[in-house]
């Protein structure tokens, strides 16, 4: 591996990622440890299901998936991205759970001209989008999609609370801004959302106790991973379940956290771009395949990873011979409509999906607990 001659991975020269023919390397950056590991596992399952049902190939080429542990999406994500680009010569990086991941890698992937397909939250503060794509959502969208519904259904002020980091701000503020714009009132003491220390605390009882005293008629929140489990369980322990309706950004009760929450989650209403009982051809096929493989209903994380694989399959195929990372990136931009289990969607101008949003409620049918579709909300994206 000599430098200076522009060979792949050289120390003293720039080079492009990607080889001519043969297998193609793709980086899958997901949490393999830390509070979001369960979500990381779900992303991996969706990704692997796509590969196993498509002969392990993208665009006719065998795929080498290189998994990287992004832990909490900060330093580990940036270091992982560097390894994927410099050591493994990937043509694309897929992954991320929180908006932090995108924040961490955005400068690097844009400089190195390697497309990043995000599968999780996305910060609202991106400027240069050329190599940044999201197959997931904008972090402000879940809250935004359900703001009108809450405003017209709840007869009184709503208490907003969330974790103190970018993902929390975006999800909760997405709701708060749309809610207030329509004339809604927050029950919080100073009219602003309450931020709980993150990741420092898992004890929400002090905050939940406050909610009662404010006379709120509903609560809107966002938490993901471990904190989501704790929040929902403690919501019940504080005596608020059944007393004050809990609305949330869908991640509060989506996927593995729902099992851990148990009966405490019943009745929670959340907004998300997927429900496992959606009735469209892609979902019927996907949900059945997933159920057969894993004995469980799929969740939005499985779908997002599946869609990311689908995107790369088509883009790498379209890039043809000598598919460099740059070429793959160009092809992603030309994709058009994507047939996903969540409904049809396509990339908007801001490289994020234009997609429908749904209101779900956690219901227990005697055998399993699930987020059941209640009604369609809005289609968001541009």
């Amino acid at each position, binding site marked *: 591996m000599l430098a200076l001659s522009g060979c792949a991975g050289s120390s003293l020269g720039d080079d492009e990622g990607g080889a001519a023919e043969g297998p193609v390397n793709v980086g899958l950056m997901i949490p393999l*440890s830390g509070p979001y*590991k*369960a979500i990381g596992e779900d992303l991996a399952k969706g990704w692997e299901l796509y590969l196993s049902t498509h002969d392990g190939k993208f665009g006719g080429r065998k795929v080498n998936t290189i998994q990287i542990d992004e832990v909490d999406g900060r330093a580990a994500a940036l270091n992982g991205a560097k390894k994927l680009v410099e050591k493994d010569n990937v043509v694309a990086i897929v992954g991320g759970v929180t908006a932090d991941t995108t924040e961490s890698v955005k400068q690097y992937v844009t400089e190195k001209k390697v497309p990043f397909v995000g599968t999780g939250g996305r910060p609202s503060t991106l400027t240069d989008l050329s190599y940044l794509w999201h197959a997931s959502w904008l972090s402000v969208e879940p809250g935004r999609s359900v703001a009108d519904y809450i405003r017209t259904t709840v007869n009184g002020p709503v208490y907003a609370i969330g974790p103190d980091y970018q993902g929390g701000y975006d999800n909760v503020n997405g709701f708060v801004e749309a809610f207030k714009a329509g004339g809604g009132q927050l029950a919080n003491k100073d009219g602003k959302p309450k931020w709980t*220390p993150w990741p420092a605390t898992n*004890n929400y*009882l002090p905050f939940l106790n406050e909610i009662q005293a404010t006379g709120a008629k509903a609560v809107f929140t966002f938490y993901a991973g471990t904190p989501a489990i704790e929040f929902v369980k403690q919501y019940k322990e504080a005596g608020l379940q059944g007393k004050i309706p809990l609305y949330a950004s869908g991640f509060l009760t989506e996927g593995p956290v729902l099992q*851990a929450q148990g009966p405490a989650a019943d009745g929670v209403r959340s907004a998300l771009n997927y429900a496992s009982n959606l009735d469209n051809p892609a979902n019927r096929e996907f949900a059945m395949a997933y159920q057969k493989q894993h004995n469980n209903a799929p969740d939005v994380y499985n779908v997002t990873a599946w869609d990311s694989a689908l995107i790369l399959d088509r883009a790498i195929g379209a890039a043809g011979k000598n598919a460099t990372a740059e070429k793959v990136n160009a092809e992603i931009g030309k994709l058009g409509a994507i047939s996903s289990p969540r409904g049809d969607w396509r990339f908007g101008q801001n490289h994020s999906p234009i997609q429908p949003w749904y209101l779900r409620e956690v219901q227990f049918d005697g055998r399993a607990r699930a987020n059941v579709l209640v009604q369609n909300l809005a289609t968001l994206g541009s």
Partner: protein
Amino acid sequence: MDQLTTYAVTSLDGVAFGLLLFTVGAGLALIFGVMDIMNLAHGTLYLVGAYVAATLSGGGLLALGVALAVGLAVGAGGGAALSFVLRPLGREGSHLDEALVTLGIAFIAADGMTAAFGAAPMQTHVPTALEGSISLGIHAYPVYRLVFIGVAALVAVLLHVAVRRSTPGKMLRATISDPDMAAASGIDTGRVRTAALAVGGALAVGAGVLGAPLLGPGPGVDNTVLVLSLIVVVVGGAGSIPGTLLAALLVGQVQTIGVVTAPALAPFALFGAMLIVLVLRGRTTAVVAGRPA
């Protein structure tokens, strides 16, 4: 009035959390007292207890009892093993090497537990008899936490009485104060040490088993518990049970009420207290932060 009730309930929660930290911290103080080591694997012991609770407790009081018994046994064994594990370092084993050993154990154990239990936090079942909440004004407070407060307070009292009044307690204090003199007066210091380590370990794991519904098992919890129990030991003075209890309750209040009212200041309050206490205690050429009175 409502606001006052809210603070009162939050403060109660602070007492529960403080008592949890006391139990863990008392264990660390014991280990520090007899071995003069900074046991960086102490948080790991708590985490083991929490995982034991999550795995074994099936919902009934008997299951919890079994989990506690298993936890105490594991903790006692682990604590006693500490002296064996450090023995190869020899008498000239430096503080550095001791720190490395406990760090190494902590890292490997953390990785092992994540591999065994998965990195998603596990659901801990509160015994059905203790489920539910009782109403305090407009608030509801979980019954389990009230019972926990009672049990932990009892443990604190028993520990204090044992250390101050009982013969083993006196032997322990002698061994910590002046090991050579204690040995010369016929006390089997080796056995006292092993016993103290076992009790210290059992306290930490026991706190994990009973405290799991308050602070449940998951990656990173070992680090949280380690840092907090370290603060408790330094602020409370490693030698006195009432001191450790006071420090633990203080930390508990800061972590609950402090976090709600002034979230940005809460961490500083903890460490600031630690540093102030150290300054006030004066220059210590002595090796232990405080000796039992």
